[in-house]
């Protein structure tokens, strides 16, 4: 697959769901000069914890250092390193596009990626696509020729593939 950027690596941190934890994480990255490419956060099924998925640019610091420094935060319980080969990686893109003449072209881009049409009015199309990050990158390129009203991506989340054990730093006994 083209478009895989080896400089970007994903880590998923299980953190205590407490006030200020996200600030602690982002402060740490800023102060140590680690570049965040994307960051997503949401509570886990156990509301005492959240998961923060960070795509970090490892040209700015070795992944090992990033993980170790992050793990030093008292509220960080566990960190998984999710390299491309080991993980399912997904991102969501939502866009609203003016479609005058090129609606069929846009529809084929959406259906190619099993996207969803959210609203289909005569002159505008709203849709979402969920795919792996390099497909989303490619889609963004393809959308450049369209008259975009708004376009957003969610940032990456990831999970280890079935049968794959990923490196894990954990405070769990």
């Amino acid at each position, binding site marked *: 697959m083209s478009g895989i950027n080896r400089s970007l690596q994903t880590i998923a941190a299980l953190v205590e769901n407490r*006030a*200020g934890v996200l600030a602690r994480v982002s*402060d740490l990255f800023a102060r140590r000069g680690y570049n965040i490419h994307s960051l997503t956060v949401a509570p886990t099924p156990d509301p005492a914890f959240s998961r923060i998925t960070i795509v970090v640019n490892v040209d700015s610091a*070795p992944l090992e*250092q990033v993980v*170790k420094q992050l793990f030093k935060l*008292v509220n*960080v319980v566990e960190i998984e390193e999710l390299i491309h080969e080991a993980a399912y990686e997904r991102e969501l893109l939502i866009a609203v596009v003016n479609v005058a003449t090129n609606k069929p072209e846009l529809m084929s881009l959406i259906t190619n990626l099993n996207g969803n049409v959210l609203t289909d009015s005569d002159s505008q199309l709203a849709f979402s696509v969920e795919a792996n990050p390099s497909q989303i990158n490619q889609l963004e390129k393809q959308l450049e020729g369209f008259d975009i009203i708004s376009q957003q991506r969610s940032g990456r989340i990831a999970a280890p593939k079935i049968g794959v054990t990923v490196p894990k730093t954990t*405070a769990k006994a």
Partner: protein
Amino acid sequence: MTTEKISEKRINGAQAVIKSLEMEGVEVIFGYPGGAILPVYDPLIDTPIRHILVRHEQGAGHMAEGYAHATGKPGVCMVTSGPAATNVVTALADAYLDSVPMVCITGQVALPNIGTDAFQEVDTTGITRSITKHNYLVTKAEDIPRIIHEAFHIATTGRPGPVLVDIPKSIVAANNPDAHFDWYYPDTIDLPGYNPEFEINVEQINQAVEMLLEAERPVLYVGGGVLKARAAEVLLELAELGDIPVVTTLMARGAFPDSHELCLGMPGMHGNYTAITAIQKSDLLIAMGSRFDDRVTGKVDAFAPEAKVVHVDIDPAEHGKIRAPELAIAGDCNDVMKAIVAKIVSDSAKFADHTAWRDTIRGWQERYPLVYEQSEEGEYLKPQFVIEQIAQSCPADTIVTAGVGQHQMWASQFWKFDHPYTWINSGGLGTMGFSIPAAIGAKAAMPDRMVWAIDGDGCFQMTAQELITAAVDKIPVKVALINNAYLGMVRQWQELFYDERYSEVHFGYDVPDYVKWSESMGCAAFKVDKIDDVRSTIDKANAINDRPVVIDFRCLSSEKVYPMVVAGGPNDDVIVHPSQAEEN
């Protein structure tokens, strides 16, 4: 006002703060009151905990550090919100960089006022996030015991550090019914993300032993972690067992006795030639609780180029942060060294012969000892001489603190430390003004020990007001003011690297009048400008035990600290004392 007593089960938040500190075994709080923390100062009257009222909150922080350095127990300081919290920031940063166990309690504006730019509101947890090991904003009175218990646990376990607890006024206000709860004190800790314990990994120990046995030119590069782990005893055992030379960093002076034949002294920018060079030529560097600070390594790529590295540290993030080790061991230095020694002893293992290595080292020691030249008749004093004279006239277990600058380096170089926890200084942050409050904290912890602060004239002017605290609270520390009329360390750089263009570094000898100033603060004070008066005045100072003493030692401005490695330069290029330069 509440009518409840602290002994009753129902308790208010302010009482809970004090009672929690009692539960943690706190003996001394260094603090300063003000609006937001006022409620907590009320039950303070009824506690056996001693409170030392400082003259500036930075002083409270450094005193707590001095207390912690001297005892290994967490130092505690307590201040109000806003400007008081920002005043204590320097001390928190200092404690963070030097891994000093400390708990700092700050008042905060009432909960409903947070975020409104209320009077004396600052975002204390935000400001201190990157300079504390952890911090808390308490939002419920009944969380106070749990959070204070956690704060002490975090501050003192693993790699120690400062923990701040920010407490809004409303939840300690005695007249707030929501700030009352049934007293409890947790006996467990529930911190799912915090596990500072490391088990000894036998395989790693075996590998370390193997590397140690093979090495022909080993050096133990000992840092502050050895002191934090209280591992001086086993360090001595290991060094003697393996005939391994030891260097002690600025944070580890005293961890290994300077008078021991295996001791090479301090490495780094102003370390001695032999310590620096032994590291450069070593084939095995055993980094023990040290962190490859840039003041030690100089140019990293040129640091110890022939050495394999075994790095033992309780903080795994130190492994490979600066230098990739051949073997990284995460653990407490005491546990790890004990395991290494046990393995060597039980195997009756034999080390490689280090005779040639020791001979080479002895050669450097003979050629490049730490030296200075005595001043000429009629000249002011040499700081090195003053420091040597104090050292020689004090008990061996005297605690020495230092400010930051030339005098700090001379103190580290020319005081011979034979006991752990006798040297207290600001290494990581390099905080001018550290020595006087740190000395007061140490003396408050250990009133029977003699405590000397070696201070600079620049440093003195930053925190001297704490001598009032010392006088009033009867904490008789002694201050050797190395008065060279300059911000000497900066002057040295300007002399060497800025063509002797002295920009904004001159203070002068006479203003302030240090003797009068000190006397006005309740101290005994002397001025010494002749070699012949040095010893007798020190003896006089040592005989005074009812108040602090300050000696204004008039020292030469031109004296420089040698050896020196230029910042960022390779450690192969040591600039030695001019009298040794030709031989180089």
